[in-house]
């Protein structure tokens, strides 16, 4: 019952779009969508998503293969460095570039910068698969007479396919939802257009219909992702311990490969961090608003903690049902929460604005609405972490503890909580990180006067006050770094980002 209610809250954006189409009528909806401007946005968005998917697939797979399966020097360090761009929000990354040169504005720049920000989403799952692949498969292929390239194409690549498709689909969803980076690079897509329509003219109908189109695109991608996920399993078949995988000697190719990985790191990490440092140094010589920084950091931390607590609290009952009382209904509930994965922040924000003005004007322009938006958007992350945590505490431990004389409360305290706590902590950290670096919904929903790291950064960089924007960006990166490091550990690789 409680879980069903939570799911209903999570589905507010969907009801909002459906309800909107219903009220204005189908003809009007078609008229709003069927415009040259929408066509142009559609082309832009499509080209960008397709390009980013292709580029992140190449970056992610190539880097993962070099790090996991070859004798590339310094593989451990590269592993961390290649994941590190996740600690730099995409809008900070584009700030790093665009504040150095305006030539990155437009399609090519957007494609490069968004891909550089999101390729770790492909790198992580592909590297995990490459690490777990049974070497016997490749040895069998070799024994059947296949050379290294044909083995890669016919044995390794097919096994990478689920991870590759899953990873690139997440990239596609992120790209569809990306606002800050693209706005900064002046490349209009659905998301930026919705924002502009809403901000400049409060053009509700047009913005809402665009949101509908965006939501449908995202849902299509999500369905695709769920289908793919249903059909594969990562684990190795058969018993016995997996042997370590022999590494391919790079030989004379060592230097070019090092150059490729180094170049990727330099572009994805070096440029934004270097640019940030540059602006910190040159910008802070004039003024360094310590008081402001402390206040906004405190606001961001507070929002992050509240958002994390709310998302975890909402996700817990559903996750518990899914793990301990699995049935068709609970699976449906669980699936419904994944919906949040596909809803761009801009759509969540629009939906909450409209719904709150209509039904609960008291919460409009309050922090309650903002925190609720965070919870809806990041519910899937909380769900996945809690599920993973609950898997660490199967019912058999409860039973053993009960048989040893522990009552239910004592069992919870001595067995279940100690087992579940690390996973819950990691889940909260992931949500916290996402909230602190969230820009789009925060811009639309933050009450007037509420200033977070992201919004302060945004208003400063929008008025080309790069030096003033840099400290806020640096703080976001510093806050993100520890959680990102966690993702390079094996245990957390499957966490959603």
């Amino acid at each position, binding site marked *: 019952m409680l879980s069903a209610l939570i799911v209903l809250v999570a589905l507010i954006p969907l009801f909002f779009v459906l309800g909107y189409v219903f009220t204005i009528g189908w003809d009007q909806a078609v008229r709003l969508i069927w415009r040259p401007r929408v066509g142009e946005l559609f082309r832009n968005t499509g080209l960008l998503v397709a390009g980013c998917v292709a580029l992140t697939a190449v970056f992610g797979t190539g880097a993962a293969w070099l790090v996991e399966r070859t004798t590339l020097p310094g593989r451990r360090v590269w592993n961390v460095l290649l994941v590190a761009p996740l600690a730099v929000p995409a809008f900070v990354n584009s700030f790093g570039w665009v504040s150095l040169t305006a030539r990155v504005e437009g399609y090519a720049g957007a494609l490069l910068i968004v891909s550089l920000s999101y390729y770790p989403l492909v790198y992580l799952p592909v590297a995990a698969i490459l690490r777990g692949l049974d070497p016997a498969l490749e040895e069998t292929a070799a024994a059947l007479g296949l050379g290294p390239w044909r083995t890669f194409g016919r044995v390794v690549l097919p096994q990478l396919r689920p991870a590759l498709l899953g990873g690139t689909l997440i990239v596609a969803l992120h790209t569809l939802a990306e606002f800050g980076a693209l706005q900064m690079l002046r490349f209009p897509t659905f998301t930026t257009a919705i924002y502009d329509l809403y901000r400049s003219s409060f053009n509700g109908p047009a913005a809402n219909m665009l949101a509908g189109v965006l939501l449908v695109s995202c849902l299509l991608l999500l369905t695709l992702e769920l289908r793919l996920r249903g059909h594969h399993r990562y684990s190795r078949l058969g018993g016995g311990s997996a042997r370590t995988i022999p590494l391919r000697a790079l030989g004379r190719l060592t230097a070019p490969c090092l150059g490729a990985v180094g170049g990727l790191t330099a572009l994805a990490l070096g440029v934004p961090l270097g640019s940030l440092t540059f602006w910190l140094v040159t910008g802070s010589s004039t003024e360094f608003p310590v008081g402001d920084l402390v206040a906004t950091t405190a606001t961001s931390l507070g929002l992050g903690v509240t958002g994390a607590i709310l998302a975890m609290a909402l996700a817990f009952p559903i996750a518990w049902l899914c793990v301990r009382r699995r049935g068709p209904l609970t699976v449906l509930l669980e699936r419904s929460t994944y919906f949040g994965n596909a809803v761009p922040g801009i759509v969540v924000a629009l939906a909450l604005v409209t719904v709150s003005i209509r039904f609960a004007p008291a919460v409009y322009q309050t922090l309650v609405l903002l925190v609720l938006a965070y919870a809806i958007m990041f519910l899937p992350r909380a769900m996945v972490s809690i599920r993973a945590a609950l898997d660490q505490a199967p019912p058999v431990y409860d039973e053993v*503890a009960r048989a040893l004389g522990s009552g239910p409360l004592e069992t919870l305290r001595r067995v279940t909580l100690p087992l579940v706590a690390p996973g819950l902590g990691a889940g909260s950290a992931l949500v916290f990180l996402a909230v602190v670096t969230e820009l789009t919904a925060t811009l639309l929903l933050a009450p007037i006067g509420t200033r977070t790291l992201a919004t302060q950064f945004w208003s400063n960089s929008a008025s080309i006050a790069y030096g003033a924007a840099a400290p806020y960006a640096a703080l976001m990166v510093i806050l993100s770094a520890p959680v990102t490091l966690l993702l390079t550990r094996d245990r957390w690789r499957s966490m959603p980002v």
Partner: protein
Amino acid sequence: MTAVSVRSLTKAFGASEVLRGIDLTVPEESVTAILGPSGCGKTTLLRLIAGFDVADSGEIALGETVVCGGGRFVAPQDRRVGYVPQEGALFPHLDVADNITFGLKGRERRSGHRVEELLALVGLDPDVRHRLPYQLSGGQQQRVALARALAPRPSLILLDEPFSSLDAGLREGTGRAVIQALKATSTTAVLVTHDQSEALSLADQVAVMRDGRLAQVGTPHEVYRAPADLGVAEFVGAAVVVDADLVDGSASSDLGPLYVMAGLGSGPARLLVRPEQIELAGSSQVGVEARVVDVSYFGHDAAVRLQVLTSGRLVTARVLGLSVPLPDSVVRLSVTGPVAAYSPEG
């Protein structure tokens, strides 16, 4: 004294009846094995005795106390029943010593002075006390799980397929160590298994379970040599079934004359011959001629598949590894010892 008595116990999950009326008495200080194929309901019975599930009807008593039935239900933590699940299920966040003392109270837990004694009881080195579960082998985990269950001195220990996850080589040794620890502490045990040799070798009493009912309860010897029916016979060991006419406790068959245990009188019957009852002789004049089809040689013994020349029937004989005939040779076989007889209807 009986440690456990179960009467007319039933349990259904949704539409599927898992237990359809179980009656079982477990004598004190004995080991009872519940033997059955997977899905027969044996784990459910164990969970009902432990108190993890509630029976639909029937009664369970531990000693004199009714713990389930007649409107009474005693929670698992108040039953003083030790539980060793499959694969041990050691608490992964606690080391060996903390796992073992988990069920102890107050000072006894904090001092941990019984850890060494319990480790010795299950045949483990005292050095393992500070290891974490993942640092132990499967057999060691199983032994620690038993020590943990024995620590609060329960009157009864329940073991759910405790050895099925172990390698064959480890299984026998671990099984023996477990039984020794149980005997040393005079603890009653109920062991659930699908492995016939495990049940026959470890238990004092074997209860054969089939489709939610107990098909037979008896000593290992009874269950093996005089099974209640041919289904039980084929489940607890390899069987050669021979149709023959009984005349006054003996029968003639294409395997030669058979001496039948008391039971059936005269008339048609189905007879159970165990492979090790079939003796082979190379050149003797007694016995029935048979051709050796093939031989599976195990070292200590061998399974020899034979075709009886007169009838064409295929039978398997189990012979010592010292005297194994060659394939395609012709030998003479005879059946020694009494065989069990069943009426032909079933």
